[in-house]
């Protein structure tokens, strides 16, 4: 039994922290905050360039694809530190799509896409959800028909979050209409500038932008279908598993909590230091313990990957626990700050930059998004404990 970072892991963490000290300034943190950690503002792009210059774009990519070849634990450390610092995340292009292409693409596809991703020239929006297909991806209706050497794509996607700034869409489409629902999907890369692609903004509760994506007779080369026809459902699941690893990190929760704690230490309300309120002390202590529990779940998931296991149950545990914990942090923050905490993030006098009420509005998405927590709990039961389906 050993829970300490190895010397190499600790050195890596220090290296990451050094990089953050050099490359994250209040301007970047503020831009990232205003864009809700999803934007691509000029400072974020500069930060991403610095990551690439450091050779840190594909941290966990094998070296043969230009990556650093770091372990999953080391990638987890990186994500945790980045989130904790409030810096822009690595794009899902790098952490989710690229690793999937590495595993399922043919040689030509790898040569075509991976170097461009590595250079920062490609940024994907993720096209899984549709109006009638949320967590239930097998219901996807967007379809593509082969016409000569081109696929002709028609349909609509929802929650296509980066569509307005992305260069391409990583699209789940139905290519085998006669196959069973799960076997009829393929993954396809669609350039955003292809004729027939339209993007319509959707604004959601925390003030973030996402998009609806419309595809009207969009033509893409035959070779843009990645891997095997009909295997899209499994590829998307693989990509989502890579994605969940990042969601399960408690870095953001730690950052929000740290800001809250700092404020509690300083504030005086009704003539009394806020930190002397017993209920505030208890809430803070509970959240700290919960964050430590969440950290353990994330770290174990990463460790299991390094042991060569596919930790589906573990990553679901981390996702469920952390998403529900963030909600508790947000609610505690709102209650502790009281009237001071309910100001809109754009109000200059909003405490902790309005993050507590923002987090309160964001938190539901963490639980229903990325595969609802119900499905995650099903996965834990089925894959973690072998419970029967019938």
């Amino acid at each position: 039994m050993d829970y300490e970072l190895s010397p190499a892991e600790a050195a890596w963490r220090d290296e990451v922290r050094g990089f953050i000290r050099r490359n994250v300034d209040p301007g970047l943190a503020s831009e990232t905050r205003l864009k809700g950690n999803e934007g691509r503002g000029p400072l974020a792009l500069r930060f991403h360039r610095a990551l690439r210059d450091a050779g840190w774009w594909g941290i966990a990519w094998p070296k043969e694809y230009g990556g650093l070849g770091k372990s999953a634990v080391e990638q987890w450390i990186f994500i945790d530190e980045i989130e904790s610092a409030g810096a822009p995340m690595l794009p899902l292009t790098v952490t989710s799509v690229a690793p999937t292409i590495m595993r399922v693409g043919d040689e030509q596809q790898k040569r075509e896409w991976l170097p461009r991703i590595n250079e920062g020239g490609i940024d994907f929006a993720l096209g899984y959800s549709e109006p009638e297909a949320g967590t239930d991806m097998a219901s996807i209706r967007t379809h593509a028909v082969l016409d000569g050497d081109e696929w002709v794509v028609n349909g609509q996607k929802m929650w296509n979050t980066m569509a307005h700034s992305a260069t391409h869409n990583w699209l789940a489409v139905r290519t085998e209409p006669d196959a069973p629902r799960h076997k009829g999907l393929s993954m396809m890369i669609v350039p955003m500038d292809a004729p027939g692609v339209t993007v319509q903004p959707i604004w959601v509760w925390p003030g973030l932008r996402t998009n609806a994506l419309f595809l009207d007779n969009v033509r893409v080369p035959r070779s843009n279908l990645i891997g095997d026809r009909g295997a899209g459902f499994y590829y998307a699941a693989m990509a989502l598993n890579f994605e969940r690893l990042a969601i399960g990190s408690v870095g953001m929760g730690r950052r929000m909590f740290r800001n809250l704690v700092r404020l509690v230490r300083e504030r005086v309300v009704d003539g009394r230091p806020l930190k002397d309120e017993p209920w505030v002390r208890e809430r803070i202590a509970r959240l700290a313990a919960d964050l430590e529990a969440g950290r353990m779940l994330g770290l174990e998931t990463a460790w299991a990957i390094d042991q060569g296991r596919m930790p589906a149950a573990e990553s679901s545990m981390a996702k469920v626990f952390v998403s529900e914990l963030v909600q508790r942090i947000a609610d505690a923050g709102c209650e502790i700050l009281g009237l001071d905490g309910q100001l809109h993030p754009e109000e200059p006098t909003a405490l902790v930059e309005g993050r507590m009420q923002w987090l309160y509005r964001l938190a539901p998405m963490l639980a229903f998004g990325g595969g609802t927590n119900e499905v995650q709990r099903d996965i834990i039961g089925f894959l973690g404990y072998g419970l029967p389906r019938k």
Partner: protein
Amino acid sequence: MRPEPTGEQRELQEAVRGLLSREVDPDRLLRWENEPAACDPVLARTVAELGWIGLGLPTASGGGGADLSDVACLVEECARGLLPRPLLGAIRSADALATLDPADPLLPDLASGRGRLALALDEPGGRDPRGWKTALSGPRGARVVDGEKAYVPDAEGSDVHLVAARDGGSTAFALVDRRTPGVSVQALRGFGGDRQGHVGYRAAAVLREIAATDEALARVQRRQAALALAEMTGGMAAVLEMTVEYVKMREQFGQKIAVFQAVRHQVADMGTTFTAARHLAWQTITRIAAGAPRDVEEASAIAWVGQAFKRVCWTAHHLHGGAGFVVEHRLRFHGERAQSLCIRWAPEAPALREIAAALLD
């Protein structure tokens, strides 16, 4: 006992529901949210003309003379139908003034909608009246108020402020024209654009002052909390109803999601929470209406109902998924109101402290 509205109350609620279902929809709410008044003047006029703002005011002041329970029924239904917050605030603040002085000459203007009153209680230093620093001074006939009030709802959109202040060793309320020299409002937006303001009063002339005991202040606050409870049960009812409808309609994995036991059980828990919260709330509202002294049950309602509303909203958001997450969806308005009502009128910690003191000290 009869834990249900009377026939008359039910009729009132149906009338409110009818109007709001026609006049309020998410697109309008979203538009109003971005307008300075955070509300439509036509709707404001309609609501006043229908007598909603004056419902609980004395008939001699142009009001409906109804008791707090009736006003709470109105407010419950208004909250259910997402009446814009400034108008709910108008009902609230009119109640505060009438509680302090049922014959105040401003009341007819409030009832008719010609005037709007903002209730200025909390201060930047906190919410405990004993710590408030805003004070009255000056000779009779030339009284002025000095101080600072924080997070005053509708501070900018109102015509007159009802300002809680110290007057020597005792409490008083000062009515201050919002446009009188010395009044400065810094507008603030809360959850979802909710309009509030920090207000500075610098030797601001007092229109009229109302001497008030600490008990009178407490009575005002209890009634405000009662109306907040009604807002919360109304919001909860709407959220539960829309969630039941949604899970019956939305399909995933080839079936209505209501068929999944995990979904069904979340709806069941929302229902249980709502049912208990509604009765806790209304027990307290009716007792306050009847002039009963504050009791442990009242503190229990405060502690419980706000948390219940938040829990119900949280589950509703979870079950709606992305569909309820767009800014145009009614659900998110309720979610914002849940937290902000809770923070302002039903914070849990002081209510729990009160219960503990009653049982243990």
